[in-house]
């Protein structure tokens, strides 16, 4: 199973955003490094985005190509890569739906946080398999002192 490292502070921000936008789905970008030489993929920053699915925001989210390009630019300026996306599932489990799978890109990490009655619960990460037929779970390692920690450390 792949590993995705995530600072506790970023994890809490994703969960808080899911609670804030409840009962609508939240979404955002994960910036970080893919990892090489056996190192784990790591999220260094997150970019909250506006869910553009105004017609069905309780069970759908959408991020425009313009927002994707802006997230790529933000990543590049920070010396990072755009490594994935997060979104919430209001009153639904933190696992990808069939709709998630059909619309997923390979390689990206997809974090899903379940929000039950405005309370964030489980959070999981997934990556689409090469054959597009299924997702592979990715272990999220919450790290209070990861290498991307704030400059004041």
């Amino acid at each position, binding site marked *: 199973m792949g590993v995705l490292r995530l600072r506790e502070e970023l994890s809490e921000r994703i969960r808080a955003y899911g609670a804030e936008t409840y009962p609508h*789905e939240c*979404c955002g970008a994960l910036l970080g490094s893919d990892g090489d030489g056996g190192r784990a993929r790591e999220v260094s920053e997150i970019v909250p985005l506006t869910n553009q*699915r105004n017609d*069905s925001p*309780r*069970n*759908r*989210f*959408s*991020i*425009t*190509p313009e927002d*994707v*390009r802006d997230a*790529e630019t933000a990543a590049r300026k920070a010396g990072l*890569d*755009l490594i994935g*996306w997060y*979104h919430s*599932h*209001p*009153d*639904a489990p933190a696992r*990808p*739906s*069939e*709709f*998630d799978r059909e*619309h*997923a*890109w*390979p*390689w*990206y990490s*997809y974090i899903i946080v379940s929000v039950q009655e405005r309370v964030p619960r489980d959070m999981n990460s997934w990556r689409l398999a*090469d*054959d*597009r037929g299924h997702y592979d779970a990715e272990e999220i390692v919450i790290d209070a002192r990861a290498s991307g920690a704030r400059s004041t450390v």
Partner: protein
Amino acid sequence: MAIKVMIPTPLRAYTEKKDSVELQAGTVGEALAALTSQFSELRKHLYAEDGRLRSFVNVYLNDEDIRYLQKDKTQVSDGDTISIVPSIAGGARG
């Protein structure tokens, strides 16, 4: 026409890690056909089973979305750049 196709990060695993591919084509459709002929694993990520571009695959010719041009029949010129840009979608139910 000699043109360049920019490959987004999630698809570089299927283009030998290249972030751009140079090829010859007369239209955007020909360029994408040449690209997926050269890198066949790309096809299922760009096209649905009915042969249409997937809804979350966006194709730009020099920063213009081809949906607002002549789609895959859009003519290309020497030195043009085609960009494949993801949009992201999903949601909790089915």
